[in-house]
């Protein structure tokens, strides 16, 4: 029988076009993404923080990194756990154990978004063409994480390292092709 369930990432077809850009844009396909809801002051949040090895970020528009798990602040009682591919079940089990009988919810949303790593000194210049957020290193240091509109599509931008211009951008899978097309167009104006 033919295997018809081969996984194909949302930007698989755009990889050659993205490779030719003057900035480095590379899709990180199939990352583990878990949506986490819990009262930030409740026992579940504290317990999850301990299980991950720190405390969940409570300052709006920030993210924390515990080992290879990024915890992104999405709302006052909502976080996104980002981990390497294939850890969905293990990470969800860890978080569920930490929640125990307390109030909290963890949902696998790995297919909802795809991630694009953007690096290079001109990334800010490119993003500024479609995004009104100030990404200057002073305004957005490493660990900043903003949810905003980029060229009318909802994105989450995580600043990994402000000095070397290292960004991780999360975009809905269904908008990924549109985002890639916009990025290629925005880079065209940069020239050489």
């Amino acid at each position, binding site marked *: 029988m033919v295997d018809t369930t081969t996984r194909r990432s949302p930007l698989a077809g755009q990889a050659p076009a993205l490779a030719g850009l003057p900035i480095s844009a590379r899709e990180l396909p199939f990352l583990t993404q878990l949506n986490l809801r819990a009262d930030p002051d409740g026992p579940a949040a504290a317990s999850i923080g301990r299980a991950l090895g720190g405390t969940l970020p409570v300052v*709006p528009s920030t993210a924390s990194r515990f080992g290879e798990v990024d915890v992104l602040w999405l709302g006052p009682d909502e976080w996104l756990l980002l981990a390497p591919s294939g850890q969905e079940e293990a990470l969800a089990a860890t978080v569920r154990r930490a929640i125990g009988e307390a109030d909290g919810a963890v949902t696998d949303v790995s297919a909802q978004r795809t991630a694009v790593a953007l690096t290079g000194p001109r990334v800010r210049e490119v993003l500024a063409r479609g995004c009104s957020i100030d990404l200057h290193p002073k305004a957005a240091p490493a660990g900043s994480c903003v949810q905003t509109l980029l060229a009318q599509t909802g994105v989450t931008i995580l600043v990994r390292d402000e000095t070397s211009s290292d960004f991780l951008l999360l975009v809905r899978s269904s908008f990924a092709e549109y985002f890639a097309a916009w990025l290629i167009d925005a880079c065209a104006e940069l020239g050489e």
Partner: protein
Amino acid sequence: MLLIPCPWCGPRDETEFHYGGQAHVAYPGNPAALSDEEWARYLFFRDNPKGAFAERWNHSAGCRRWFNAVRDTADNEIRAVYRTGEPRPVTA
């Protein structure tokens, strides 16, 4: 475009927000006891002041939380923002 200060995320473009109409419109305690006229008044009748107006906004492209803002309808200045459940602040 308005620059709306989300109580969680800070100032953001108006396009990131969704408008929710007048704030502090309480759901009737006993809807079944209302006459048609009172029910219509609850559903459809809203204030339309020239000046400070408390209204609901949702930061739909950001943290997706509802909050309240006092906007001056004459000059579109946002006088105050506050989280849901908090009383309306006194504004000039």
